[in-house]
Protein backbone atom coordinates (compact mmCIF):
# COMPACT_ATOMS: atom_id res chain seq x y z
CA UNK A 1 0.00 0.00 0.00
CA UNK A 2 1.43 3.32 -1.05
CA UNK A 3 0.63 6.31 1.12
CA UNK A 4 0.91 8.48 -1.98
CA UNK A 5 -1.75 6.42 -3.70
CA UNK A 6 -4.00 6.76 -0.67
CA UNK A 7 -3.53 10.50 -0.62
CA UNK A 8 -4.33 10.67 -4.32
CA UNK A 9 -7.47 8.61 -3.76
CA UNK A 10 -8.45 10.88 -0.86
CA UNK A 11 -8.25 13.81 -3.26
CA UNK A 12 -10.61 12.11 -5.68
CA UNK A 13 -8.21 10.27 -7.98
CA UNK A 14 -10.26 7.28 -9.04
CA UNK A 15 -7.32 5.58 -10.72
CA UNK A 16 -5.42 5.65 -7.45
CA UNK A 17 -8.43 4.25 -5.64
CA UNK A 18 -8.75 1.53 -8.26
CA UNK A 19 -5.12 0.56 -7.81
CA UNK A 20 -5.54 0.36 -4.05
CA UNK A 21 -8.59 -1.85 -4.02
CA UNK A 22 -7.36 -4.00 -6.88
CA UNK A 23 -4.36 -4.88 -4.76
CA UNK A 24 -6.52 -5.60 -1.73
CA UNK A 25 -9.41 -7.46 -3.33
CA UNK A 26 -8.12 -11.02 -3.13
CA UNK A 27 -7.29 -10.79 0.56
CA UNK A 28 -10.47 -8.98 1.54
CA UNK A 29 -12.76 -11.18 -0.52
CA UNK A 30 -11.20 -14.21 1.14
CA UNK A 31 -11.73 -12.55 4.51
CA UNK A 32 -15.40 -12.00 3.71
CA UNK A 33 -15.77 -15.56 2.43
CA UNK A 34 -14.36 -16.96 5.64
CA UNK A 35 -16.58 -14.81 7.85
CA UNK A 36 -19.79 -15.32 5.90
CA UNK A 37 -19.11 -18.81 4.52
CA UNK A 38 -21.01 -17.89 1.39
CA UNK A 39 -19.24 -16.71 -1.77
CA UNK A 40 -22.18 -14.74 -3.13
CA UNK A 41 -22.74 -12.85 0.08
CA UNK A 42 -19.02 -12.30 0.40
CA UNK A 43 -18.97 -10.82 -3.06
CA UNK A 44 -21.77 -8.42 -2.20
CA UNK A 45 -20.15 -7.47 1.09
CA UNK A 46 -16.78 -6.81 -0.52
CA UNK A 47 -18.34 -4.70 -3.23
CA UNK A 48 -20.43 -2.73 -0.75
CA UNK A 49 -17.36 -2.05 1.34
CA UNK A 50 -15.42 -0.81 -1.67
CA UNK A 51 -18.20 1.52 -2.75
CA UNK A 52 -18.40 2.87 0.78
CA UNK A 53 -14.62 3.25 0.81
CA UNK A 54 -14.74 5.42 -2.28
CA UNK A 55 -17.36 7.64 -0.75
CA UNK A 56 -15.69 7.96 2.61
CA UNK A 57 -12.00 7.92 1.84
CA UNK A 58 -11.72 11.72 1.90
CA UNK A 59 -12.57 11.46 5.58
CA UNK A 60 -9.78 9.00 6.32
CA UNK A 61 -7.62 10.72 8.92
CA UNK A 62 -4.38 8.82 8.47
CA UNK A 63 -3.31 7.49 5.08
CA UNK A 64 -1.06 4.95 6.77
CA UNK A 65 -4.12 3.37 8.33
CA UNK A 66 -5.77 2.70 4.98
CA UNK A 67 -5.38 -1.08 5.11
CA UNK A 68 -6.87 -1.36 8.58
CA UNK A 69 -9.63 1.07 7.69
CA UNK A 70 -10.56 -0.84 4.54
CA UNK A 71 -10.51 -4.12 6.43
CA UNK A 72 -12.88 -2.64 8.97
CA UNK A 73 -15.25 -1.57 6.21
CA UNK A 74 -15.28 -5.09 4.83
CA UNK A 75 -15.95 -6.61 8.24
CA UNK A 76 -18.77 -4.13 8.83
CA UNK A 77 -20.20 -4.96 5.43
CA UNK A 78 -20.09 -8.64 6.37
CA UNK A 79 -22.09 -7.86 9.49
CA UNK A 80 -24.58 -5.89 7.40
CA UNK A 81 -24.82 -8.73 4.93
CA UNK A 82 -25.34 -11.26 7.69
CA UNK A 83 -28.09 -9.13 9.21
CA UNK A 84 -29.70 -8.81 5.83
CA UNK A 85 -29.61 -12.56 5.36
CA UNK A 86 -31.00 -13.12 8.81
CA UNK A 87 -33.80 -10.63 8.23
CA UNK A 88 -34.79 -12.30 5.02
CA UNK A 89 -34.31 -15.83 6.33
CA UNK A 90 -32.26 -16.58 3.29
CA UNK A 91 -29.37 -18.38 4.91
CA UNK A 92 -27.45 -19.99 2.14
CA UNK A 93 -26.24 -23.50 2.49
CA UNK A 94 -23.57 -23.07 -0.13
CA UNK A 95 -20.16 -23.68 1.35
CA UNK A 96 -16.93 -22.48 -0.10
CA UNK A 97 -15.10 -25.29 1.57
CA UNK A 98 -17.51 -28.05 0.67
CA UNK A 99 -15.79 -31.11 -0.64
CA UNK A 100 -17.10 -33.30 -3.35
CA UNK A 101 -18.87 -36.46 -2.32
CA UNK A 102 -16.14 -38.63 -3.68
CA UNK A 103 -13.37 -36.87 -1.81
CA UNK A 104 -12.82 -39.12 1.15
CA UNK A 105 -9.23 -38.44 2.11
CA UNK A 106 -8.51 -38.03 5.78
CA UNK A 107 -7.37 -34.44 5.30
CA UNK A 108 -10.56 -33.61 3.52
CA UNK A 109 -12.65 -35.26 6.19
CA UNK A 110 -10.89 -33.25 8.86
CA UNK A 111 -11.44 -30.10 6.84
CA UNK A 112 -15.14 -30.88 6.60
CA UNK A 113 -15.35 -31.40 10.35
CA UNK A 114 -13.70 -28.04 11.00
CA UNK A 115 -15.98 -26.43 8.46
CA UNK A 116 -19.05 -27.79 10.21
CA UNK A 117 -17.82 -26.77 13.63
CA UNK A 118 -16.83 -23.30 12.45
CA UNK A 119 -20.04 -22.69 10.54
CA UNK A 120 -22.25 -23.01 13.61
CA UNK A 121 -20.30 -20.44 15.60
CA UNK A 122 -21.97 -17.07 16.12
CA UNK A 123 -20.87 -14.39 13.64
CA UNK A 124 -18.99 -12.46 16.34
CA UNK A 125 -16.85 -15.48 17.17
CA UNK A 126 -16.24 -16.42 13.54
CA UNK A 127 -15.08 -12.91 12.82
CA UNK A 128 -12.48 -12.71 15.58
CA UNK A 129 -11.18 -16.17 14.73
CA UNK A 130 -10.78 -15.22 11.06
CA UNK A 131 -9.03 -11.99 11.95
CA UNK A 132 -6.68 -13.85 14.29
CA UNK A 133 -5.95 -16.95 12.26
CA UNK A 134 -6.27 -15.76 8.67
CA UNK A 135 -5.29 -12.11 8.96
CA UNK A 136 -2.82 -12.87 11.75
CA UNK A 137 -3.90 -9.84 13.73
CA UNK A 138 -3.14 -9.35 17.38
CA UNK A 139 -5.96 -9.02 19.86
CA UNK A 140 -5.31 -5.29 20.01
CA UNK A 141 -5.51 -4.97 16.23
CA UNK A 142 -8.71 -7.00 16.18
CA UNK A 143 -10.16 -4.74 18.86
CA UNK A 144 -9.30 -1.69 16.75
CA UNK A 145 -10.77 -3.28 13.64
CA UNK A 146 -14.05 -4.15 15.33
CA UNK A 147 -14.22 -1.16 17.64
CA UNK A 148 -14.60 -3.33 20.73
CA UNK A 149 -12.54 -3.74 23.91
CA UNK A 150 -9.56 -6.09 23.86
CA UNK A 151 -11.16 -8.07 26.66
CA UNK A 152 -14.17 -8.72 24.47
CA UNK A 153 -11.92 -9.95 21.70
CA UNK A 154 -10.21 -12.34 24.04
CA UNK A 155 -13.46 -13.71 25.37
CA UNK A 156 -14.86 -14.19 21.87
CA UNK A 157 -11.72 -16.04 20.83
CA UNK A 158 -11.82 -18.15 23.95
CA UNK A 159 -15.49 -19.05 23.60
CA UNK A 160 -15.14 -19.65 19.88
CA UNK A 161 -12.23 -22.02 20.25
CA UNK A 162 -13.92 -23.79 23.14
CA UNK A 163 -17.08 -24.24 21.12
CA UNK A 164 -15.14 -25.63 18.20
CA UNK A 165 -13.21 -28.00 20.44
CA UNK A 166 -16.45 -29.20 21.98
CA UNK A 167 -17.98 -29.75 18.56
CA UNK A 168 -14.96 -31.64 17.29
CA UNK A 169 -14.79 -33.74 20.45
CA UNK A 170 -18.46 -34.57 20.10
CA UNK A 171 -17.83 -35.55 16.50
CA UNK A 172 -14.98 -37.79 17.64
CA UNK A 173 -17.26 -39.50 20.14
CA UNK A 174 -19.96 -39.86 17.53
CA UNK A 175 -17.50 -41.45 15.11
CA UNK A 176 -16.40 -43.90 17.79
CA UNK A 177 -19.97 -44.95 18.51
CA UNK A 178 -21.20 -48.08 16.69
CA UNK A 179 -23.16 -47.11 13.61
CA UNK A 180 -26.30 -48.85 14.74
CA UNK A 181 -26.63 -46.63 17.77
CA UNK A 182 -25.73 -43.27 16.26
CA UNK A 183 -29.26 -42.23 15.52
CA UNK A 184 -30.80 -43.68 18.59
Amino acid sequence: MSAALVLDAMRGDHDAFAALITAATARLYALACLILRDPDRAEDATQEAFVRAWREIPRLRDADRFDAWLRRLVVNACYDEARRVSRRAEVSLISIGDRSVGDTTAASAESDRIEQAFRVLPLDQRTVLVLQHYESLSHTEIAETLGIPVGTVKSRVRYGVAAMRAALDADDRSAATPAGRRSA
Partner: protein
Amino acid sequence: MSEPRTDRDVERALTAWMDHVAPPRPPSRILERTFVQTMQARQLRRYPWNAGIPVGAGGRTELVSRATLVLVVVGVLLAVVAAVALVGGGQRPAVPLVTAPSPTPTAVVVPSPSATVAPSLPAAIPVPIETAIPVADAMTVVGDDQALWVMAPGRIDRIDPSTDTVTGSVPIGDPGDLYNGVAVNASGVWATNWTAQELVRVNATTLKVAARIPAGLAPKGVLANADGVWVADTHGGTVLPIDQTLNRAGTGIKVAEAANSGPNWFGSGEGSIWVGVPNNSTVARIDPGTNTVTAAVPATGDFVPCGGIAVDAGAVWITGCSAVMMAARIDPATNTMVATIDLHGYGSTPTVINGKPWLSVQGGEPGTGFLARIDPGTNTIDRVLVPDTTFGGGGDMLVAAGSAWVVDGGRVLRLPLAAFGAATG
Protein backbone atom coordinates in the same frame (compact mmCIF):
# COMPACT_ATOMS: atom_id res chain seq x y z
CA MET B 1 -7.71 -39.09 18.25
CA SER B 2 -5.70 -40.80 20.99
CA GLU B 3 -4.99 -37.75 23.17
CA PRO B 4 -7.45 -35.10 24.24
CA ARG B 5 -7.65 -32.22 21.80
CA THR B 6 -6.39 -28.90 23.23
CA ASP B 7 -7.35 -25.34 22.36
CA ARG B 8 -3.95 -24.99 20.76
CA ASP B 9 -4.71 -27.96 18.51
CA VAL B 10 -7.96 -26.33 17.47
CA GLU B 11 -6.24 -23.03 16.70
CA ARG B 12 -3.54 -24.71 14.62
CA ALA B 13 -6.19 -26.62 12.71
CA LEU B 14 -8.17 -23.45 12.17
CA THR B 15 -5.19 -21.62 10.70
CA ALA B 16 -4.43 -24.48 8.32
CA TRP B 17 -8.07 -24.86 7.36
CA MET B 18 -8.54 -21.16 6.62
CA ASP B 19 -5.47 -21.08 4.42
CA HIS B 20 -6.81 -24.13 2.64
CA VAL B 21 -10.37 -23.00 2.00
CA ALA B 22 -9.77 -19.29 1.39
CA PRO B 23 -10.49 -18.64 -2.28
CA PRO B 24 -7.26 -18.03 -4.19
CA ARG B 25 -8.71 -15.30 -6.35
CA PRO B 26 -11.80 -13.11 -6.27
CA PRO B 27 -14.38 -12.94 -9.04
CA SER B 28 -13.41 -10.17 -11.44
CA ARG B 29 -16.95 -8.81 -11.32
CA ILE B 30 -16.34 -7.45 -7.82
CA LEU B 31 -14.00 -4.84 -9.24
CA GLU B 32 -16.00 -4.34 -12.41
CA ARG B 33 -19.17 -3.61 -10.49
CA THR B 34 -17.38 -1.57 -7.89
CA PHE B 35 -15.95 0.66 -10.57
CA VAL B 36 -19.31 1.09 -12.24
CA GLN B 37 -20.70 2.35 -8.95
CA THR B 38 -17.78 4.36 -7.69
CA MET B 39 -17.34 6.24 -10.90
CA GLN B 40 -20.89 7.43 -10.44
CA ALA B 41 -20.97 7.88 -6.68
CA ARG B 42 -19.74 11.13 -5.26
CA GLN B 43 -17.06 11.19 -2.66
CA LEU B 44 -17.97 12.73 0.64
CA ARG B 45 -15.52 15.54 0.49
CA ARG B 46 -14.06 17.17 3.54
CA TYR B 47 -12.33 20.41 2.86
CA PRO B 48 -10.03 22.13 5.34
CA TRP B 49 -12.68 24.51 6.54
CA ASN B 50 -14.91 21.64 7.53
CA ALA B 51 -12.39 20.48 10.09
CA GLY B 52 -12.95 21.64 13.63
CA ILE B 53 -16.34 23.12 12.94
CA PRO B 54 -19.19 21.45 14.76
CA VAL B 55 -21.73 20.01 12.42
CA GLY B 56 -25.08 21.49 13.30
CA ALA B 57 -28.34 22.25 11.71
CA GLY B 58 -26.76 24.94 9.63
CA GLY B 59 -28.06 27.94 11.49
CA ARG B 60 -27.16 31.49 10.81
CA THR B 61 -24.19 31.60 13.12
CA GLU B 62 -22.64 28.54 11.59
CA LEU B 63 -23.33 29.86 8.12
CA VAL B 64 -21.54 33.09 8.87
CA SER B 65 -18.57 31.42 10.51
CA ARG B 66 -18.17 28.94 7.70
CA ALA B 67 -18.63 31.59 5.07
CA THR B 68 -15.97 33.66 6.78
CA LEU B 69 -13.61 30.74 6.73
CA VAL B 70 -14.37 30.11 3.08
CA LEU B 71 -13.60 33.73 2.27
CA VAL B 72 -10.35 33.58 4.22
CA VAL B 73 -9.25 30.42 2.46
CA VAL B 74 -10.23 31.76 -0.95
CA GLY B 75 -8.47 35.02 -0.19
CA VAL B 76 -5.28 33.28 0.82
CA LEU B 77 -5.38 31.14 -2.30
CA LEU B 78 -5.90 34.16 -4.51
CA ALA B 79 -3.04 35.95 -2.80
CA VAL B 80 -0.77 33.01 -3.39
CA VAL B 81 -1.81 32.78 -7.01
CA ALA B 82 -1.26 36.49 -7.52
CA ALA B 83 2.17 36.27 -5.92
CA VAL B 84 3.14 33.37 -8.12
CA ALA B 85 1.90 35.22 -11.20
CA LEU B 86 3.96 38.27 -10.29
CA VAL B 87 7.18 36.32 -10.25
CA GLY B 88 6.35 34.66 -13.52
CA GLY B 89 5.66 31.25 -12.11
CA GLY B 90 2.48 29.28 -11.92
CA GLN B 91 1.03 26.41 -13.78
CA ARG B 92 -1.32 26.26 -16.66
CA PRO B 93 -4.87 25.81 -15.58
CA ALA B 94 -6.75 22.72 -16.60
CA VAL B 95 -9.40 24.95 -18.09
CA PRO B 96 -8.23 28.09 -19.93
CA LEU B 97 -9.71 31.24 -18.46
CA VAL B 98 -11.12 34.44 -19.78
CA THR B 99 -12.36 37.46 -17.92
CA ALA B 100 -15.95 36.98 -16.98
CA PRO B 101 -18.46 38.99 -18.96
CA SER B 102 -20.45 39.21 -15.78
CA PRO B 103 -21.68 42.03 -13.59
CA THR B 104 -18.68 41.46 -11.38
CA PRO B 105 -15.73 41.19 -13.76
CA THR B 106 -13.12 41.08 -11.06
CA ALA B 107 -9.71 39.71 -11.83
CA VAL B 108 -10.49 36.23 -10.68
CA VAL B 109 -7.98 33.66 -11.75
CA VAL B 110 -8.72 30.03 -11.29
CA PRO B 111 -5.60 28.06 -10.49
CA SER B 112 -5.23 24.38 -11.04
CA PRO B 113 -2.45 22.08 -10.04
CA SER B 114 -3.04 20.06 -13.14
CA ALA B 115 -0.83 20.62 -16.13
CA THR B 116 -3.35 18.97 -18.41
CA VAL B 117 -5.06 21.26 -20.83
CA ALA B 118 -8.15 20.02 -22.54
CA PRO B 119 -7.88 21.67 -25.95
CA SER B 120 -11.47 21.23 -26.94
CA LEU B 121 -12.87 22.96 -23.88
CA PRO B 122 -13.74 26.61 -24.28
CA ALA B 123 -12.12 29.13 -21.96
CA ALA B 124 -13.57 29.04 -18.48
CA ILE B 125 -15.55 31.99 -17.26
CA PRO B 126 -15.51 32.82 -13.56
CA VAL B 127 -19.01 32.95 -12.14
CA PRO B 128 -19.68 34.84 -8.91
CA ILE B 129 -21.10 32.84 -6.05
CA GLU B 130 -24.15 34.55 -4.64
CA THR B 131 -24.18 32.42 -1.54
CA ALA B 132 -22.28 29.39 -0.30
CA ILE B 133 -24.41 27.50 2.18
CA PRO B 134 -22.55 24.96 4.28
CA VAL B 135 -24.30 21.60 4.44
CA ALA B 136 -22.11 18.94 5.97
CA ASP B 137 -21.51 15.98 3.67
CA ALA B 138 -24.08 17.21 1.15
CA MET B 139 -24.64 14.57 -1.53
CA THR B 140 -27.33 15.87 -3.84
CA VAL B 141 -30.07 18.48 -4.00
CA VAL B 142 -33.64 18.66 -5.32
CA GLY B 143 -36.39 21.20 -4.87
CA ASP B 144 -38.35 24.11 -6.21
CA ASP B 145 -38.89 27.81 -5.56
CA GLN B 146 -40.21 27.16 -2.06
CA ALA B 147 -37.59 24.82 -0.70
CA LEU B 148 -34.42 22.97 -1.57
CA TRP B 149 -33.81 19.53 -0.08
CA VAL B 150 -30.25 18.42 0.39
CA MET B 151 -29.56 14.78 1.11
CA ALA B 152 -26.66 13.85 3.35
CA PRO B 153 -25.88 10.60 5.12
CA GLY B 154 -28.73 9.94 7.54
CA ARG B 155 -30.62 13.18 7.01
CA ILE B 156 -32.29 15.58 4.63
CA ASP B 157 -31.74 19.30 5.18
CA ARG B 158 -34.17 21.95 4.05
CA ILE B 159 -32.86 25.20 2.59
CA ASP B 160 -35.09 28.24 2.34
CA PRO B 161 -34.10 29.99 -0.88
CA SER B 162 -35.62 33.25 0.34
CA THR B 163 -33.03 33.48 3.11
CA ASP B 164 -30.33 31.11 1.87
CA THR B 165 -30.30 29.31 5.19
CA VAL B 166 -30.85 25.80 6.37
CA THR B 167 -34.20 25.91 8.12
CA GLY B 168 -34.65 22.30 9.06
CA SER B 169 -33.10 18.87 9.14
CA VAL B 170 -34.90 15.55 9.05
CA PRO B 171 -33.12 12.45 10.37
CA ILE B 172 -34.00 9.64 7.97
CA GLY B 173 -31.83 6.80 9.23
CA ASP B 174 -28.43 5.63 10.33
CA PRO B 175 -25.73 7.99 9.02
CA GLY B 176 -23.66 4.89 8.31
CA ASP B 177 -26.17 3.61 5.80
CA LEU B 178 -25.75 4.21 2.10
CA TYR B 179 -28.27 6.70 0.74
CA ASN B 180 -28.63 7.14 -2.97
CA GLY B 181 -31.52 9.02 -4.48
CA VAL B 182 -33.76 11.84 -3.38
CA ALA B 183 -36.79 13.35 -5.10
CA VAL B 184 -39.65 15.64 -4.19
CA ASN B 185 -43.24 16.04 -5.31
CA ALA B 186 -46.44 17.34 -3.77
CA SER B 187 -46.71 14.21 -1.65
CA GLY B 188 -43.41 14.58 0.09
CA VAL B 189 -39.68 14.18 -0.11
CA TRP B 190 -38.51 10.69 -1.00
CA ALA B 191 -35.10 9.16 -0.35
CA THR B 192 -33.69 5.71 -0.96
CA ASN B 193 -31.72 3.87 1.70
CA TRP B 194 -29.70 1.18 -0.01
CA THR B 195 -28.59 -0.45 3.21
CA ALA B 196 -32.02 -0.67 4.82
CA GLN B 197 -33.64 -1.54 1.47
CA GLU B 198 -36.30 1.06 1.91
CA LEU B 199 -37.76 4.24 0.50
CA VAL B 200 -38.11 6.91 3.15
CA ARG B 201 -41.02 9.32 2.78
CA VAL B 202 -40.67 12.65 4.53
CA ASN B 203 -43.52 15.04 5.21
CA ALA B 204 -42.27 18.33 3.81
CA THR B 205 -44.41 20.35 6.19
CA THR B 206 -43.82 18.62 9.50
CA LEU B 207 -40.28 17.63 8.60
CA LYS B 208 -40.85 14.15 9.95
CA VAL B 209 -40.55 10.71 8.42
CA ALA B 210 -44.02 9.76 7.28
CA ALA B 211 -43.32 6.24 6.05
CA ARG B 212 -40.63 3.68 5.48
CA ILE B 213 -41.51 1.62 2.45
CA PRO B 214 -39.73 -1.67 1.65
CA ALA B 215 -38.28 -1.10 -1.79
CA GLY B 216 -36.73 -4.23 -3.20
CA LEU B 217 -33.21 -5.54 -2.81
CA ALA B 218 -31.18 -2.42 -3.47
CA PRO B 219 -33.09 0.84 -3.97
CA LYS B 220 -31.05 3.48 -5.77
CA GLY B 221 -32.64 6.15 -7.94
CA VAL B 222 -36.04 7.61 -7.14
CA LEU B 223 -38.30 9.68 -9.36
CA ALA B 224 -41.20 11.70 -7.98
CA ASN B 225 -43.45 13.93 -10.01
CA ALA B 226 -47.12 14.68 -10.52
CA ASP B 227 -47.63 11.30 -12.20
CA GLY B 228 -46.24 9.19 -9.38
CA VAL B 229 -43.20 7.86 -7.61
CA TRP B 230 -40.85 5.16 -8.87
CA VAL B 231 -37.80 3.50 -7.36
CA ALA B 232 -35.00 1.70 -9.17
CA ASP B 233 -34.34 -1.63 -7.49
CA THR B 234 -30.81 -2.04 -8.75
CA HIS B 235 -30.21 -5.63 -7.72
CA GLY B 236 -33.77 -6.69 -8.42
CA GLY B 237 -33.60 -5.51 -12.03
CA THR B 238 -36.92 -3.73 -11.71
CA VAL B 239 -38.50 -0.32 -11.42
CA LEU B 240 -40.97 -0.25 -8.56
CA PRO B 241 -44.02 1.99 -8.83
CA ILE B 242 -44.94 3.31 -5.40
CA ASP B 243 -48.52 3.53 -4.21
CA GLN B 244 -48.51 6.89 -2.43
CA THR B 245 -51.79 6.16 -0.69
CA LEU B 246 -50.86 2.80 0.74
CA ASN B 247 -47.15 3.55 1.09
CA ARG B 248 -46.09 0.36 -0.58
CA ALA B 249 -44.34 -0.75 -3.73
CA GLY B 250 -46.33 -2.23 -6.56
CA THR B 251 -45.36 -4.92 -9.01
CA GLY B 252 -41.91 -4.33 -10.37
CA ILE B 253 -41.39 -3.35 -13.98
CA LYS B 254 -38.65 -5.61 -15.22
CA VAL B 255 -35.88 -3.80 -17.08
CA ALA B 256 -33.03 -6.25 -16.47
CA GLU B 257 -32.24 -9.58 -14.94
CA ALA B 258 -31.84 -9.56 -11.17
CA ALA B 259 -28.16 -8.84 -10.68
CA ASN B 260 -25.78 -6.14 -9.61
CA SER B 261 -25.64 -2.86 -11.52
CA GLY B 262 -29.22 -3.00 -12.70
CA PRO B 263 -31.45 0.09 -13.02
CA ASN B 264 -29.82 3.19 -11.58
CA TRP B 265 -31.10 6.75 -12.10
CA PHE B 266 -34.22 8.29 -13.59
CA GLY B 267 -35.27 11.08 -15.88
CA SER B 268 -38.75 12.16 -16.90
CA GLY B 269 -40.02 13.75 -20.08
CA GLU B 270 -41.28 13.15 -23.62
CA GLY B 271 -44.23 11.32 -22.08
CA SER B 272 -42.01 8.68 -20.50
CA ILE B 273 -39.79 7.91 -17.62
CA TRP B 274 -36.25 6.86 -18.44
CA VAL B 275 -33.87 4.76 -16.41
CA GLY B 276 -30.28 3.78 -17.12
CA VAL B 277 -29.42 0.08 -16.81
CA PRO B 278 -25.65 -0.47 -16.77
CA ASN B 279 -25.59 -4.24 -16.67
CA ASN B 280 -27.38 -4.63 -19.98
CA SER B 281 -26.13 -1.32 -21.40
CA THR B 282 -29.54 0.10 -22.15
CA VAL B 283 -31.70 3.01 -21.18
CA ALA B 284 -35.19 1.72 -20.51
CA ARG B 285 -38.14 3.85 -21.54
CA ILE B 286 -41.29 3.31 -19.51
CA ASP B 287 -44.83 4.51 -20.04
CA PRO B 288 -45.83 5.99 -16.67
CA GLY B 289 -49.49 5.48 -17.43
CA THR B 290 -49.28 1.74 -17.93
CA ASN B 291 -45.97 1.04 -16.16
CA THR B 292 -44.74 -0.93 -19.13
CA VAL B 293 -41.43 -0.79 -20.93
CA THR B 294 -41.89 0.74 -24.35
CA ALA B 295 -38.27 0.68 -25.47
CA ALA B 296 -34.78 -0.34 -24.40
CA VAL B 297 -32.32 2.05 -25.99
CA PRO B 298 -28.93 0.36 -26.43
CA ALA B 299 -25.83 2.31 -25.46
CA THR B 300 -23.21 2.81 -28.11
CA GLY B 301 -19.50 2.12 -27.94
CA ASP B 302 -17.91 2.30 -24.50
CA PHE B 303 -20.69 4.32 -22.98
CA VAL B 304 -22.05 2.90 -19.71
CA PRO B 305 -25.55 4.27 -18.97
CA CYS B 306 -25.17 4.62 -15.23
CA GLY B 307 -25.41 8.36 -14.61
CA GLY B 308 -28.17 10.87 -14.07
CA ILE B 309 -30.69 11.72 -16.77
CA ALA B 310 -32.32 14.93 -17.96
CA VAL B 311 -34.99 15.17 -20.61
CA ASP B 312 -35.69 18.20 -22.76
CA ALA B 313 -37.73 18.69 -25.87
CA GLY B 314 -36.33 16.31 -28.44
CA ALA B 315 -33.41 15.02 -26.42
CA VAL B 316 -32.61 12.75 -23.49
CA TRP B 317 -29.23 13.40 -21.87
CA ILE B 318 -27.53 10.84 -19.68
CA THR B 319 -24.19 10.87 -17.94
CA GLY B 320 -21.93 7.86 -18.08
CA CYS B 321 -19.38 6.57 -15.63
CA SER B 322 -17.03 4.31 -17.51
CA ALA B 323 -13.32 4.98 -17.81
CA VAL B 324 -14.23 7.18 -20.75
CA MET B 325 -15.94 10.14 -19.10
CA MET B 326 -18.88 10.96 -21.30
CA ALA B 327 -22.46 12.05 -21.54
CA ALA B 328 -24.74 10.69 -24.22
CA ARG B 329 -27.73 11.96 -26.15
CA ILE B 330 -30.75 9.87 -27.02
CA ASP B 331 -33.23 10.80 -29.69
CA PRO B 332 -36.64 10.00 -28.18
CA ALA B 333 -38.22 9.98 -31.62
CA THR B 334 -36.17 7.00 -32.74
CA ASN B 335 -35.12 5.59 -29.36
CA THR B 336 -31.50 5.57 -30.40
CA MET B 337 -28.35 6.94 -28.85
CA VAL B 338 -27.21 9.48 -31.37
CA ALA B 339 -24.15 11.08 -29.80
CA THR B 340 -21.64 10.88 -26.99
CA ILE B 341 -19.88 13.90 -25.58
CA ASP B 342 -16.47 13.90 -23.88
CA LEU B 343 -16.91 15.66 -20.56
CA HIS B 344 -13.22 15.78 -19.58
CA GLY B 345 -14.22 14.56 -16.11
CA TYR B 346 -16.96 12.77 -14.22
CA GLY B 347 -20.23 14.54 -14.76
CA SER B 348 -23.20 15.14 -12.51
CA THR B 349 -26.82 14.61 -13.43
CA PRO B 350 -27.53 16.96 -16.35
CA THR B 351 -29.79 19.95 -15.79
CA VAL B 352 -31.40 21.75 -18.69
CA ILE B 353 -31.09 25.55 -18.49
CA ASN B 354 -32.30 27.75 -21.31
CA GLY B 355 -32.78 24.72 -23.51
CA LYS B 356 -29.26 23.39 -23.07
CA PRO B 357 -27.95 20.71 -20.72
CA TRP B 358 -25.46 21.71 -18.04
CA LEU B 359 -23.37 19.40 -15.91
CA SER B 360 -21.07 19.91 -12.99
CA VAL B 361 -17.87 18.13 -13.95
CA GLN B 362 -15.46 16.72 -11.43
CA GLY B 363 -11.91 17.53 -12.42
CA GLY B 364 -10.34 14.98 -10.13
CA GLU B 365 -9.44 17.11 -7.13
CA PRO B 366 -10.64 20.27 -5.44
CA GLY B 367 -10.02 23.29 -7.61
CA THR B 368 -10.28 21.52 -10.94
CA GLY B 369 -14.03 21.15 -11.28
CA PHE B 370 -16.16 23.19 -13.63
CA LEU B 371 -19.68 23.65 -14.96
CA ALA B 372 -20.08 22.67 -18.59
CA ARG B 373 -22.79 23.38 -21.10
CA ILE B 374 -23.47 21.12 -24.05
CA ASP B 375 -24.54 22.75 -27.27
CA PRO B 376 -27.34 20.55 -28.63
CA GLY B 377 -26.55 21.81 -32.11
CA THR B 378 -23.04 20.40 -32.16
CA ASN B 379 -23.11 17.99 -29.21
CA THR B 380 -19.97 19.59 -27.83
CA ILE B 381 -19.21 21.62 -24.72
CA ASP B 382 -19.56 25.27 -25.68
CA ARG B 383 -19.45 27.10 -22.35
CA VAL B 384 -17.51 26.51 -19.16
CA LEU B 385 -17.99 28.25 -15.83
CA VAL B 386 -15.84 28.07 -12.71
CA PRO B 387 -17.38 29.30 -9.46
CA ASP B 388 -14.22 29.61 -7.40
CA THR B 389 -10.74 28.32 -6.79
CA THR B 390 -11.87 25.38 -4.73
CA PHE B 391 -14.72 24.11 -6.86
CA GLY B 392 -14.42 20.34 -7.10
CA GLY B 393 -17.34 19.67 -9.43
CA GLY B 394 -19.43 16.57 -9.90
CA GLY B 395 -22.30 17.56 -7.59
CA ASP B 396 -25.84 17.74 -8.86
CA MET B 397 -27.44 21.00 -10.02
CA LEU B 398 -30.91 22.44 -10.22
CA VAL B 399 -32.65 25.67 -11.08
CA ALA B 400 -34.94 27.19 -8.47
CA ALA B 401 -35.94 30.57 -7.12
CA GLY B 402 -34.34 32.39 -10.01
CA SER B 403 -30.89 30.91 -9.47
CA ALA B 404 -28.82 27.89 -10.31
CA TRP B 405 -27.77 25.73 -7.38
CA VAL B 406 -24.99 23.19 -7.27
CA VAL B 407 -23.74 20.85 -4.59
CA ASP B 408 -20.01 20.98 -4.16
CA GLY B 409 -18.52 19.03 -1.30
CA GLY B 410 -19.92 20.25 1.97
CA ARG B 411 -21.65 23.28 0.55
CA VAL B 412 -24.48 24.28 -1.73
CA LEU B 413 -23.62 27.15 -4.05
CA ARG B 414 -26.18 29.64 -5.32
CA LEU B 415 -25.16 31.04 -8.69
CA PRO B 416 -26.72 33.77 -10.85
CA LEU B 417 -28.79 32.28 -13.63
CA ALA B 418 -27.66 35.05 -15.98
CA ALA B 419 -24.16 33.58 -15.99
CA PHE B 420 -25.47 30.45 -17.64
CA GLY B 421 -25.99 32.39 -20.80
CA ALA B 422 -28.44 32.53 -23.63
CA ALA B 423 -28.49 30.15 -26.53
CA THR B 424 -25.47 31.75 -28.18
CA GLY B 425 -23.49 31.73 -24.95
